[in-house]
């Protein structure tokens, strides 16, 4: 790291954007924003702006991808060309292909896939503006969009990263912290089930720091969770009741 560079966090534990170590960026969550989708959500997480649309359960195209014993969840994480500093080609990058996969795997544990055999459900994620932590914000919004579509869910999935800047473990890194910091640990979590459904790490942490980061990230998720529920409001309540009935049967 450059000596002349400003410290990412000062002696009082205040970060460049004014946050404390364990403080989330401002979040805005909206549900049901896309008229044509079966479910949708919009999230602003810091300067991240992400739109998610869900279509299905519906017949799969092409058909041979369908499964006789369960629904197939497909997930596409995609960045708008203007969402990043240098214009991004709209063709999916290797990074986008990987993130589509880990995001899908972070959502699957929340769904009752076996309830809808031979069908498919598509989650389309569009990152309109990126500012670090897009995968986490995408998961938070995708879970809302799935809930909004009316499909039964075991729990919402909520995601948030922790990481390390200078020598401090902090919550919810934004772009500059992600690039200049020592480590980033995105975590997706189902609070009611105490289940971590996504975990990645880039950068080095000691075992103690790692333990702290995981714990800080899940705590962050627990803070976001009520905001998700608030966004779903009565709609979500309705859905949850249905879910419980079905699982009790």
């Amino acid at each position, binding site marked *: 790291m450059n000596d002349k560079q400003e410290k990412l966090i000062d002696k009082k534990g205040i970060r460049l954007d004014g946050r404390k170590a364990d403080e989330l960026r401002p979040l805005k969550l909206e549900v049901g924003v*896309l*008229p*044509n*989708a079966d479910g*949708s959500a919009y999230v602003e997480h810091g*300067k991240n*702006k992400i*739109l*998610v*649309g869900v*279509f299905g359960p*519906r017949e799969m195209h092409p058909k041979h991808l369908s499964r006789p014993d369960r629904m197939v969840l497909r997930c*596409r994480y*995609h960045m*708008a*060309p*203007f*969402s*990043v*500093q*240098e*214009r991004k080609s*709209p*063709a999916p990058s290797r990074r986008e292909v990987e993130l589509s996969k880990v995001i899908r795997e972070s959502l699957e544990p929340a769904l009752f896939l076996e309830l809808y055999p031979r069908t498919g459900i*598509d989650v*389309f994620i*569009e990152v*309109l*503006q*990126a*500012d670090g932590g897009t995968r986490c914000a995408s998961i938070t919004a995708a879970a809302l969009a799935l809930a909004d579509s009316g499909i039964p869910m075991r729990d919402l999935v909520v995601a948030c990263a922790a990481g390390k800047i200078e020598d401090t473990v902090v919550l919810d890194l934004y772009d500059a912290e992600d690039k200049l910091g020592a480590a980033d640990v995105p975590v997706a979590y189902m609070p009611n089930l105490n289940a971590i459904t996504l975990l990645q790490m880039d950068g080095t942490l000691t075992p103690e720091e790692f333990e702290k980061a995981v714990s800080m990230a899940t705590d962050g998720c627990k803070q976001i969770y009520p905001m998700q529920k608030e966004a779903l409001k009565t709609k979500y309540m309705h859905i949850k009741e249905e879910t419980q009935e079905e699982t009790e049967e």
Partner: protein
Amino acid sequence: MSTLITKVRQRQISQLIEKGKRLDDRALTDYREIKIEEGLIERAEGSAKILLGKTEVLVGVKVGTGEPFTDTPNEGVLTVNAELVPLASPSFEPGPPDENSIELARIVDRGIRESKTIDNEKLCIEPGKKVFVVFVDVYVLNHDGNLIDASALAAVSALLNTKMPNFEIKDGEVKIKQGYTPLSLRSHPVTVTIGKIGDKLVVDLGLEEEQVMDARLSMAVKDDGNICAIQKGGSGYFTPQQIIEASKLAQEKAAEMRKKLKW
């Protein structure tokens, strides 16, 4: 596919139009409500989101540098791309651009290019070597009909709030300096698409109306009222008289819509 409407519904729409009426009580020559929000994407050099009824299009402008084309060494490059994002409609599929998104991008491109909206020579950094490249990315977020007019208007809106990076040439190397200069536009083209349903000319077709449309005519109109680009689409036809009639209607509507642009 799930966006297809029934034959009964189609007949209902056609019959209404024949009587000069529409499902949502608009006149045949009325646009739906238009809302434009500018500068939404801070990371882009320019951006605008339009709501045309429920049709929603976001346009982001990115400015990069690159080489000029060999036949225009003193001119910057304008590149328009359109994505029919799959969350905008069950009929849009992920994948490389299909003929619909390519046509949409090329219509938007021609409106800007033929109206000489951008002074391409001002985008030149070093003749023959380095120029600015202006990427206009049209991102369709919800499809409820008339994507062409919405996209074209949002594109010009986005260009209107586009800021160009400052630069200096030092020791033969181009350096991007701090600060920005607004991109100055020489024209404010507005594209008006007129659909033909039966014998009627109708503006701003909704998604269902587009399914009973015979053909459409999209016209880019400049500030002085002259048309600078046209595209006929759809499997039907126009009579020469209808073409002239449509061009007059387009001029009229363009003047109205131009008021939505801020400059």
